């Protein structure tokens, strides 16, 4: 039926995929609604959410979804994202990474160092965004924090958000650049070739376990 492609390897369960896309969707919506309020030239984005007031109302609630969504991903994947010696080596050869000279890189397990960095960055950033967001969520919490704390929270929230977006860009670009990646999250499986090329150690582990 299909061309020889090294068969397929299951990478994400249905639950993980749903979890991811909820998180991804809410992150995108967070970025859009947050950017709308971040810079005047992007205020037009509030129209996507029904106007300024509703953007202001919706944004933190999506944040809650994002937080719990990501918490699910964290529980699922934290163990795969522990750092090891190969990751350090991988990082040292970032030039080879960018130039797609994967053959020169050590064999990679389920996640490479870049993915792990994205994971941990998101973990940290989303926690920070969530906490600073609570401080800024006047509708429910205005009485619990001083104006000074809120000002600090606002700065932290903005910085964290911008970094989050940057990390997100890296994440998305990597998925686009590395062909065959997206299907992991759409179909749940990757081709054997893809796994061989990018996550050889993981492929071996998967095969061994059979």
């Amino acid at each position, binding site marked *: 039926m299909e061309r020889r492609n*090294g068969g397929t390897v299951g990478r994400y369960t249905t639950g993980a995929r749903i979890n991811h896309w909820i998180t991804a969707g809410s992150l995108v919506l967070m970025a859009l609604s947050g950017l709308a309020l971040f*810079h005047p030239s992007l205020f037009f984005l509030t129209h996507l959410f029904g106007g300024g007031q509703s953007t202001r109302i919706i944004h933190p609630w999506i944040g809650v979804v994002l937080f719990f969504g990501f918490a699910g991903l964290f529980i699922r994947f934290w163990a795969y994202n522990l750092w090891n010696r190969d990751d350090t080596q991988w990082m040292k050869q970032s030039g080879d990474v*960018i130039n797609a000279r994967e053959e020169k890189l050590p064999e990679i397990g389920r996640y490479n160092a870049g993915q792990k960095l994205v994971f941990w960055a998101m973990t940290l950033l989303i926690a920070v965004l969530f906490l600073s967001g609570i401080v800024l969520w006047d*509708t429910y919490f205005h009485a619990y924090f001083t104006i*000074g704390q*809120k000002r600090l929270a606002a*700065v932290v929230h903005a910085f964290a958000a911008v970094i989050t977006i940057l990390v997100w860009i890296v994440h998305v670009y990597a998925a686009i650049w590395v062909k065959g990646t997206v299907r992991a999250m759409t179909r749940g499986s990757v081709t054997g070739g893809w796994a*061989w090329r990018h996550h050889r150690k993981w492929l071996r582990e998967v095969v061994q376990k059979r």
Partner: protein
Amino acid sequence: MATLQSLDIKRRSATTEPPPHVRGNAIEVAKLIDVSKCIGCKACQAACLEWNDLREEVGYNTGVYDNPADLSPATWTLMRFTEFDNKGNLEWLIRKDGCMHCEDPGCLKACPAPGAIVQYQNGIVDFVSENCIGCGYCVKGCPFNIPRISQADNKAYKCTLCSDRVAVGQAPACAKACPTQAIYFGSKDDMIAHAEERIVDLKERGYANAGLYDPKGVGGTHVMYVLHHADQPELYAGLPNEPRISRLVELWKGGTKPLALAGIGLAAVVGFFHYIVKGPNEVTEEDDERADQINR
């Protein structure tokens, strides 16, 4: 009536394009609050409530004369009473609190909603409710802790300096009502000149540190105070000494924004060109074959 030529806009929140400003010769107005003449009668509060159609719920006595207890969406001005024992001589310092109409308004700087906060050529800083999204950033931007968000409609409210009256050549309701001319309204220049006369009088009466409160940290204000103890503004229910827009707010609302957007844009562009230059990272046939060998 909706368009009032007398009030051209000087600054507008969250707006990238400058408003028309050819007609920039408007008279800057100011309200001078002479604390040394204030009897704390609250006529200004009553006039403000009456003119602006504000009525909040009847509160309680909390052991002080300050009523309501704080500024609120329906209390735009408030007398704050302080009993000060000045070396055995009791002084009852009574300050009318409310929006200072800063020349460099922290609220406007912080506001993310285009046109929700405007500053007119005459210096009045006004909240435009229909544009307000209720985020409360103005509260964080204000060095004087003035704006309040309504729980009823999630809009920010504060003193408008009766922009509707000033627009048609009338004084603000509070200034008009004040029985002892403790509130005086006119051009900012005239108010400063009048304040100087008052300060001379106060010095003659033994207040060596009498002075004008027109803090430079916010570019001066369009609501100024004559204080008997200008060296200690904090005495007057915590009037800030040398207020300025918080550095955090400046950081948040200053250079960060374009830099951040540029950074995001740059990241996208870099990615794009990386793709163009390097092409996609594709799985080779060899990869497939090698995979086949073990994956079957």
